[in-house]
Each structure stands twice: as C-alpha cells, then as structure tokens.
C-alpha cells in the first residue's frame, strides 16, 4: 500500500465575507493522477493555491507527509503549481526560466526539458512574451513535467494549446509519472480528452467536495439506458433520471445510481441497451444547477 502523501482535513477558506471553500477533506497518494473538475468559480484554483502554499486555509489543515507545508522551507519546493500566467512582460526565454527553476529546484531535469521543447516543437531561445498563447502554455507544461516535484499541479495548463500539443502533453504526463511517480493534479475543463489520464476524480462544486473516487468507481455511479421510448420510460420510471434525449422513436435516459440484478434482468428481457456514462456526462449532470441533482 502506498503512503498517503497529501491530506486536506476540513479545510475552509474565507476571503473577506465570501466563504470560498468549505470543509474540504481529500487524500492524495504518490503515483496517482488526480483529475480536479468543477464549474467556473467552483473553487478549483483556490483549492490548488492552498495546496501550493499560495494561501493559508482559514480553518482546517493541509499536510504533506504529516507536516504543514505553509512557510515550510523543505516542503514548499516539493510542490510545483503551474497555472495560466500573463507573460506579456516576460522578456526572458523559456530556457532562462528553466535554468532559473533548476537553481531553486534540484530535481529539475534540464535535459528532459530540452527534449520536451523539441517534442512540443517550440524554440527555447525566443523571449516568452513574443510567443503565442499556446506556446506559452507549453512552456508552463514543460516546467511542470521537468520539475520532477513530488506534487505537481497543472491548473488548466492546456488552455490555448492546439490539439497535437495537448495530445503530446497527455502522453508526457503518463510517461513522467511512470518515470518518476508523483502526485499529479490536473484541473481542466476539457474533461472528455483527459478522462483516460485520471486515476481518481475529484469534483468540487460551490466550494465543497462533491466526490473523490477512483475513476472506475465514479463511472459506476450512473448508466445510460437506450431503447424504444415507451420501454425506456417504463424502465426508468422510479429511477433518478439525470437527463433524457429523444431521437425519433428512440429514447436515451441517463440515470444516477446502480442497477440491481432484477433490474438488469428486466433490461435484458426488454432488449434495452445499457451502457456506462462518460465522465463528462456525469460531471455535467452532477453539477447542473438543479436541486434534485444535488
């Protein structure tokens, strides 16, 4: 069993009169990739900034291997927080930034960073402010991947990247974690593309944790029933239906919950097609602004 590395216990954050995060409890282990999902303004970046010691929780605690990382000289360099930065005034080159990071973070692998620059197809000797938004995002991604920090946080780091760059980044996330197991947290809105990277999913909504589960367990929270409209309606009559779609005589219902054996047999006898939900579908339905869903 792997050691628990990062623990957040009942952490809350108030900013002025706003209660931005409330009673967050999470546990993250080394070697796993965590997908942090949430609607805009849910508190994802704020939660990540607590982990990276950019902020201190108002209540509760955050520990890395049992110690509070805030203002801890040993633990703070162990966390790398990469987020969208305004580089309009950044005259240094990506290589300058990599060398600067290397000075402060001993684990930073400069040769690997050079390989990643080639992989992303970007030059490392051009001032960053003269690069496109996608290239700047790639620079951030490279710094995070090459840092080899035990806790690496990517907050919407693929924003602005083109599809090939995103795909390359996803491959490298898996490779980097295989080479040097660490706790990786990926916060994203591109859920459908990144789903396969996640070992566990964390959903945050209105500043509270809605779920933290292994991806396969999470996906078992719901299912999709497809078939003739009348049969589907009868089958899902007493179930917690998240959404319905009709295409001619065919109806597809997204249902929250698990089927028991009787229901499975009924679905088979009615020739209904049962499939699992996609992470994105489940995420959208769970965070829709409907009282019944919450």
């Amino acid at each position: 069993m792997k050691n628990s590395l990062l623990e957040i216990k009942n952490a809350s954050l108030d900013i002025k009169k706003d209660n931005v995060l409330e009673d967050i409890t999470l546990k993250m282990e080394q070697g796993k990739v965590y997908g942090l999902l949430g609607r805009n303004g849910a508190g994802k970046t704020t939660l990540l900034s607590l982990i990276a010691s950019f902020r201190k929780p108002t209540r509760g605690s955050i520990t890395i291997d049992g110690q509070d990382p805030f203002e801890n000289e040993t633990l703070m360099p162990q966390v790398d927080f990469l987020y969208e930065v305004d580089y309009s005034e950044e005259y240094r080159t990506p290589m300058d930034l990599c060398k600067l990071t290397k000075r402060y973070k001993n684990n930073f692998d400069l040769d690997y960073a050079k390989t990643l620059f080639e992989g992303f197809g970007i030059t490392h000797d051009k001032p960053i402010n003269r690069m496109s938004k996608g290239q700047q995002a790639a620079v951030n991604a490279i710094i995070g991947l090459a840092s080899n920090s035990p806790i690496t946080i990517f907050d919407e780091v693929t924003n602005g990247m083109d599809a090939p760059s995103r795909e390359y980044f996803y491959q490298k996330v898996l490779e980097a974690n295989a080479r040097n197991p660490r706790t990786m947290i990926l916060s994203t809105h591109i859920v459908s593309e990144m789903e396969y990277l996640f070992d566990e999913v964390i959903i945050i909504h209105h500043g509270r944790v809605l779920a933290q589960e292994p991806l396969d367990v999470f996906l078992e929270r719901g299912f999709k029933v497809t078939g003739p409209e009348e049969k589907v309606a009868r089958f899902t009559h007493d179930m917690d239906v998240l959404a319905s779609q009709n295409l001619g005589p065919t109806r597809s219902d997204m249902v929250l919950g698990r089927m028991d054996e009787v229901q499975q047999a009924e679905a088979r006898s009615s020739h209904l097609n049962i499939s699992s939900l996609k992470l994105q579908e489940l995420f959208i339905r769970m965070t829709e602004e409907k009282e019944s869903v919450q």
Partner: protein
Amino acid sequence: MNNKLKLAAMDFSGQIFKWTLWYLPIMLIIYILVSIFINEQDINEMSFYAMALSANEIFMLVAGILSVFMFLELSVSLGLTRRTFLRAMLLTGGIITIALAAMTGIISVIMNFMPWFGGSIVVGDLESGPLVHILGHLLTTFTFFLGGFIISIGFYRGFLGGMISIVLSLCILVAIDSLWMWQTRGTVFDIDVTPYASGNLFMTIVFSLFLIFFTVAILQSLIRSVPVKVK
C-alpha cells in the same frame, strides 16, 4: 545564510541592478544637459553625486514599490517561503543601495576631471564630513527602499492597505530624512535649527537603526501570511 537566500538575493539584486543601468545613464544625460545649458553658479558647481542624491532615494523608493509585484509570486512559485523572500529583498535593498552610491560616486569623480562640470556636494554637508554624509545617505536611501516595500505589500494586500501603507511610509521617510538633514545641515523642514540644537551623530544613527528595525518588523507582519494571487 542558507543557499536559497543567497540565490534569491543574487537574482533580485541582478534584476534591480539592470534597472540601475537604465536609470544612471538617464540621470547622467540630465546632469550634462543641465550643466551645459543652465547658467547658474550653484548648478554649474554641483557634482553629479550631489544631483543624484535625491534621485537615488526616489529610485530606491520605486524599486521597493515594484518589489512585491515583481518578485513575490515568482519566489513562492520557486518554493521560497515568504520569510526567505523578505530576507532576500532586505539584502537586495542593502546591496543596491551600496552599489548605487558607489556607481554614483565613481561617475561623479570621473566627471569632476572634466572642466565643464562641478565638484561640490552640498555646502552644509561639507561641515559634517564625508563619512557622516555617506553613512546618512546610505541609511536614508535604504529606508526609502523599505518605505517603497511597505507601500508595495500594502497595495498587494488591497487598496485600503495600500493607502494606509502610503501614510505609514511617508511618516518613516520624513522621520529619517529630517534626522539626517538635522545632523548634516542643521535644518529641519528647511528651518535652520542650529541656534537651538545640534545633531548628535550617535543618537542619529541609533534612531535611524530603530526606524529601520521598526519598518522591517512592520514588513514581517504584513508579509508573514500574505496570499499570493493567481489570475
């Protein structure tokens, strides 16, 4: 001194030193133009050092004001604690204060060899001696940097904090400036106080150091748990 502190102090000093390489030539051009085109005895006799004194203080005030906005987020991203950041900035302020005074002095000496430029510092200052004058200048300039730093952290925390920090900073800067004006020129707010009292060098240094420690204590309390803003 730990390794990270040394690195940070070197990196911050290097960055601010680059700004001085813009600032000093601009000051030099202004000095040359003023010396050539303005025909007033006081100005024509004034050295580059004398002219750059107040400007150096303002430069350090501005450097202090930029410090948090330029370096705090980067520092925490690189894994430095706020405490290390503060210490590195204090060292940087000291290094740049000395480097700026030295460069200003060297340029002044070189200019003094040319017949078109003056060599006087300030009449009053000659009485207190060059060492006292240099010490006063260094302590005052460093305090200006700290004053800027307070304004910077104040505004980083919020608008109201920024406005309060301006008032606080002004009080500190007026206090140290008055102390050394009294010590070196015998004036306070341009009023001649020599008939009533004369400055005591030891007490002036003690009060200056007290002001500096007081300012650092304020900075420490303001920066201890300051949230680093993202986006």
